[in-house]
Every structure is written in structure tokens, then in C-alpha cells.
């Protein structure tokens, strides 16, 4: 039994090797690296209050456990206009009003309503990548469509933060109205 088992396996690995050699490396990219690059771009399409525009740094806060944090490290030091990214992991009890962009991981679903309540009036651009978050009041929410990263925007949520999102960004996004809202 054992010997008859080994031969097919050897052939199998040979076949895998052949398949491999036939394979040309493809180029899909890590989902979260692409999302981080999107966040970098978002900052350019948001009209920040003058006080923030004057700063030399932009603070990107990451709340919760997930895969965005590692990818966001790549943004550290990169510049949007005159401001360089600071990347800061935060807890839900941190002063989130100090963030310019707040990425909320899926792990924070339970805390989301309380969290968004606490942010009311602060000029913080909230970003997430969990289904339904935009409808719940997150300004920009990623989703995947046929292996491509897409995003939805909740303009009312951005408005509550006192942020205006450029029409160029709105044009390529799926617009989400809040339940009961008049968007």
C-alpha cells in the first residue's frame, strides 16, 4: 500500500512543478496596501478646516485589531501637500478628536454607535471596511467588487464632521444615505 502511494504522489509533485514553471507571477496586490493608498488619496480630496491645513502633520489613527495597521505603516512620513502622515494605533478611550483620519476595524462593531456619537462635531474623517458601516454613519467605507477595491461615501456623516468631500471623489463612489435621512 505504502509504495503504491508514493509513486502517484511523486508524479503529482512533478505535475505541480511543471504547473508552477508554466506559471508567470501575476500581479494582484495585497488588499490592505491598496486601501492604505486610497486613504492617502482621500486626504487630498477632503476640504480640511484651516487649522488643520496649517499643520505639518496628518494623524491617521487605527482603532481595533485587523490588517489595516500593518499596511498603513507604509504611509508613515509620506506627504499630502505640506503635511506628513503620522500613523497611530489607538484605543476606544483615546481622544479620537485628535485624529484627522480614523480607520475603524471590523472588530469595533459593538462600539460603533457610541464611538460615532463621541466624534460628533470633530473634524475627523472616519474610514472603515465593514459591510453596513457607511449606513451607520462612517464617512467612507471600503468594499470589494470582483477583486477590486471600491468605496461608498456617506456625505451626511462627513458633513457632521464639518468636512466637505470633493465632487471628484463622490463621482467614483457609491453614495449611501442614512436610514431615515434625506440624502
Amino acid at each position, binding site marked *: 500500500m505504502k509504495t503504491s502511494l508514493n509513486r502517484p504522489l511523486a508524479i503529482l509533485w512533478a505535475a505541480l512543478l511543471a*504547473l508552477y514553471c508554466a506559471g508567470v507571477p*501575476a500581479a*494582484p496586490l495585497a488588499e490592505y496596501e*491598496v486601501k*492604505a493608498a486610497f486613504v492617502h488619496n482621500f486626504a487630498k480630496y477632503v476640504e480640511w478646516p484651516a487649522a488643520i491645513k496649517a499643520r505639518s502633520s496628518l494623524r491617521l489613527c487605527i482603532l481595533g485589531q485587523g490588517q489595516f495597521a500593518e499596511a498603513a505603516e507604509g504611509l508613515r512620513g509620506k506627504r499630502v501637500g505640506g503635511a506628513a502622515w503620522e500613523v497611530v494605533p489607538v484605543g476606544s478611550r483615546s481622544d479620537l478628536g485628535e485624529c484627522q483620519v480614523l480607520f475603524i476595524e*471590523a472588530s469595533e462593531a459593538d462600539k460603533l454607535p457610541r464611538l460615532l456619537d463621541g466624534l460628533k462635531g470633530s473634524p475627523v474623517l472616519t474610514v472603515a471596511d465593514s459591510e453596513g458601516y457607511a449606513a451607520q454613519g462612517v464617512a467612507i467605507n471600503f468594499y470589494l467588487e470582483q477583486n*477590486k477595491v471600491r468605496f461608498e461615501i456617506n456625505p451626511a456623516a462627513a458633513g457632521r464632521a464639518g468636512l466637505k468631500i470633493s465632487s471628484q471623489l463622490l463621482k467614483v463612489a457609491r453614495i449611501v444615505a442614512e436610514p431615515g435621512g434625506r440624502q
Partner: protein
Amino acid sequence: MVIVLPVLAADRSPCLRLTACAGALLLVLATPASAEEAADLTQLSIEELLSVEVYSASRFAQKTTEAPAAVSIVTAADIRNYGYRTLADILGSLRGLFVTSDRNYRYVGVRGFNRPGDYNSRILLLVDGIRVNDANYDTASIGNELFLDVDLIDRVEVVRGPGSSIYGSNAFFGVVNVISKRGRDYNGWEAAGSAASYGTGKGRLTYGRQLDNGAEILLSTSYSDSRGQNLYFPEFDSPDTNNGIARKRDHGSYQNFYGKLSYAGFTLTSAYSESTQGVPTASFGSVFNDPRTQTVDSQAVLDLAYAGKLGERLDLSGRVFYGGYFYDSVFPYDAPPVTLNKDQAWAEWWGAEARLVGQFDRHKLVFGAEYQDNFRQDMKNYDQAPYEVYLDEQHSSQRQAVYIQDDLPLGERLRLNAGLRYDHFSTVGGTWNPRLALIYTPQPETAVKLLYGTAFRAPNAYEMYYSSASLGSKPSVGLEPEEVTSYEIVVEHQFQANFRVSASVYQNEISNLISQITDTDGYNVFRNIGQFKANGAEFEVERAWADDTRLRASYAWQITRSQDTGTTLENSPRHLAKLNYSMPLFGEAWRAGMELQYTSARKTLAGARAGSYAIANLTLLNRKLAEGLEVSASVYNLFDRHYADPGRPEHVEDLIGQDGRSFRLKAVYRF
């Protein structure tokens, strides 16, 4: 617009990847972390980013580390990549699970348990929360009988271990949660057709859409027909019985309809399926090679579910449901003359469930209640002509249950998940089932889970009432639920976003197992007699590379002994190994998916051995030939390995040979 980006050096080195796919796990561990030095994507504009294709991390990184159990997930992509035809194919690829066939139905073994004679009653199968296990035999249908086409599956989550503290009866060794695709996953029509060995053809037509008001609709229907093959059974090798050759007696056909409509938190699901399967094994002492021998299984589903918010931190979900399972069969017996015997069953039930999930301070609490009325549990066995009834049973029963679960952080790194459920059956009374899980996360990437729980299965209508002196059986009175107490330690570690390993060690103590025995008076009867102890260990590694090459490899060791006789259980392999490897070929146009499954020798009912075997399956997939077109070619049992599964009590055959090399060509078109 296609953007060409520089390719990573480290992660795509052929030799590193080869050693990895060769299964040298240590070398896999040594491969460097991925994707650090990728091109500077921040240089790209929004429009450019929108056209970049990514490999999804999320489907891999389901937060299984947070689940209070050892969980496996199979996605729609896996189903495509590995050419899975049924839920049985999916389950057979998973760690510690194995699927056997008697050429009539398929049976899944979990943690060393797949006794010949059982009908998949010790796993609970849910489709979008709808209980599939029927009210007569408790069967979790994993073959063609299932009402949901495998192409419509978005993902399958297999939760190992006792699940009765939330799910009640049947969640004995595990729960299989099937989640279907949504209308928005199609947004249009999809047609699929396939041709396969043994004269098998299949077609499917699906329509799905999300409307502007948020409503979603999904409609699908499938039809399949298989002419069958010639099979040789040495037990019947005599001139009277066609020299042991059953000529295309394993033919089969099935059709199903599935519809789902959702709007504003409500989801209405309706489905119907009918599967006809020829039986080539002359089971239950029927006439060999008779073209009329067949079983027909039908399922009906009508389910209205709701999920919504009652407040900021309070979620409500619930459902009202109707389910039906209908069984019809023909078995010819040489009386003489040859008489057609019909065995039939009708099970119908309706019920309601509600579940509240709320966050109260640090507690995440779940409260639930269920009611099910099995208003029809009928079985009949009779000869057609001359008409003679051997069994005609009409029954009904009810069950109700309440449960509570609390998830409580005990500090930064420790979480307690505790649950308790009470079930009451009109037939056998009440049973309590607790579950405790302590989850320790010393760092975000690592979880250690200590699990304790009990689960049960109530005797079903078949076990309680299928008896007739003329069929050689007598009523099974005084049956009680069978029980399992389980202890398990699970360790999971995620090295990076796309690389994780998990291991678990468990012990199951099974008592009062409902088993059919032959009593001293010669009659067959079901009794609570089996006491078993199962010990096992499982190890699994999963990895995805930046170009969406994927590897999943697992090994499971288990030993199950009867406490009464000290002997090992039949159809219980000591070792199971699985390997799934899928990768892009020729750029991204093609993909290859390769599977290896090893099952060690098993004891048969006659005390002989079903030899160990390893089979390989290969699928080539292309999704880029034309817009909306996906084609695939699969070879199952690539090396034409001859192997057999143990027969069941209803078989003369102690071993039942399985399919050799077979093929399938499939095309899916979206429009």
C-alpha cells in the same frame, strides 16, 4: 486600464514557493514576510487605484481566532478553484472530516465517528440559519439532495465540537453553516452547464439583483442527470445475478429550485428539491441489478427571517419556518415472484425562533428561544402487488428550547464565553447543555482556547417508530437522548496577515449512543447502549501569497474506542491528511487547484479492513476567456486509485468500491 506594477522579489521566488508547496512546513515557516516592499501605491491616483486588482485578505482572515471553537471556512472561490460538486466534496477537503459513500447517499465523518448505519444525524446542517436535518431521520443532506446548489454557496463555516448550547439537537460533533450568495453577487443572469463522466450532465440558471430601494432577489434552478456506470460486485458474481455486474444501476437525476427575497431586514426563502438515485448495491436484501431499485428524496423550505436593531446595542433576529422532507423508494424482492416493496416517509414541520443579542456594559449577551412542531412524522412500508402493508406509522411531536450565552472580557487578554440551553421534547423530556470557553490572547495574533461542552441528539422518529414484526424489528421503547461531553484545547497563531496555523487536542466522551442491536429474541431494536471515548489531535496550516496562491494543509489523528468492548470503531480512520493548493497560471487568466486526501485503513462491519488510500483531484479554471465567461476542467481521483468504503448493515457487501478517475467540464456565463 491595466496598471503594471513591479513584482515583489522575495515572495514570488519560485524555489521558496516550491518548497512550500512540497509540504515542507518548516520551510514555509522560513519564507520571509510578504508585501513589504511593494510598489509605492500612494503614487497612484484614485482612478488608477480603482482598477487595481487585489487579492482579498478578508475571506482568509475571518476572525476565526475569536470564535469559541475550532472553525474552518470554505469560500465560493475555493468551490470554483477545486471544482467542488456537492457539499460532501467541500466537507471532505477539511481537516479531520472524511466522507464515505455507499453509492446511494454520502456520509460525513467527524472526529473519528462515521458509523455504518447512521444517517448524518450527528452534525447539524444550517443553510442561512435554516435547519436542514429533517424531522424523521435527522439527516444532514450533503449530497445532491440538498436544496441549495453548491454554486450558490458564498461560504461554508464548519464549527467543530459540541454546539447544543446554542443549536440544540444534532449539533453533536459539529455545526455546518452554509451561507448563500446574495442577489447583488449576481446583478444579472448566470447560466452554467457541465458534462462529466458516467454520462452526467447538469445545467443551472440563476438570476440575482439588488434594486435601488435596497431589496434583493435571487432565483435559481438546476437540473442534472447521470446515466451511471457498470459496477462489479464480487458478492453477486454468479450467473443468476448477471455475474456481479450492476449495469448503470447507479444512475441518478436531481432538480432544485431556490428563491430568496430580502427587504428591510426581512428575508423570505423558498426552495424545493428532488433527487432520484438508483441503487446498485442490492441493499436491504433486494434483487441485484434490477433497474427499478431507487430512492427519491425531496426537500421543501419556506422561511421568513428577520434581522434588525431594537436599539443602539440590541439586535433582534428571528424566523418562522416550514420544512418538509419526503422519501420514496422502490426495492424489488424475489418473494418469489419479484414483488416491488415501497418504503416511504413524510416529515413536515413548522416553527419559530427568536434571538436577542445585546451589549450590556462589558457583557455581550445572547438570549434565544425556539419552538418546532413536527406535525407530520409518517412512515410506511408496503408491497405494491399484491398490496400488503408491513408498517404504517403516523406521529407528531414538538420541541421547545431556551438558551442564553454570555461573552465577557476578564481583562485585557482573557475572555469567557459561557452558554446554557434547555431543550424539551414531547417525546423524551428535557435536557440541559452547557458550554464554557476560555479564550486567552497573549498577543493579537495568538489565541489559546480552552473548551468544555456537552451536546445531545434526541432519538428521531425513525429510531422510535420504524418497527414491524414482519420486517424483523420491534418497537424501541424508553429511548433517551444520546450525549457527548467534550474537552478541547485549541491554539491558533497568525504569523502575518496571510499565514496562520492552528492545532487542537480533544477528548469526546459519548454515552447512551442510540444503536440498533439484535435482541435475544432475534428482533432488531434501537437501544441507548453505546459508550465511546474518542481522542484526537489536529494540526492545520493555511497560507496565501501576494499573487493569490493558496495553501491549506492539515493532519488529524484520532482514535475512537467502545468503552464496553475496548475495540476501535468501524469506519474510523486513525489518520487523515489533506492538502489543498491553488495558484494562478499564465498570468492571472488561469488557475490550478490541486487536492490531496489521505485516509488511513478502517475497520469494516465484518471485521476486515478497508485499505488506506490517497486520492488527488485537479481543477484548471479560466475566468478571462471572454467577458463574463468562466470555464473549468476537473479530474477527480487523478491517479485512478482503487479504494473502497465499508458497507453498512443493509449491505451484503462488506466493502463498496468507489469511483476511479473521472472528469468534468464546466462553463459558467454571466449576462
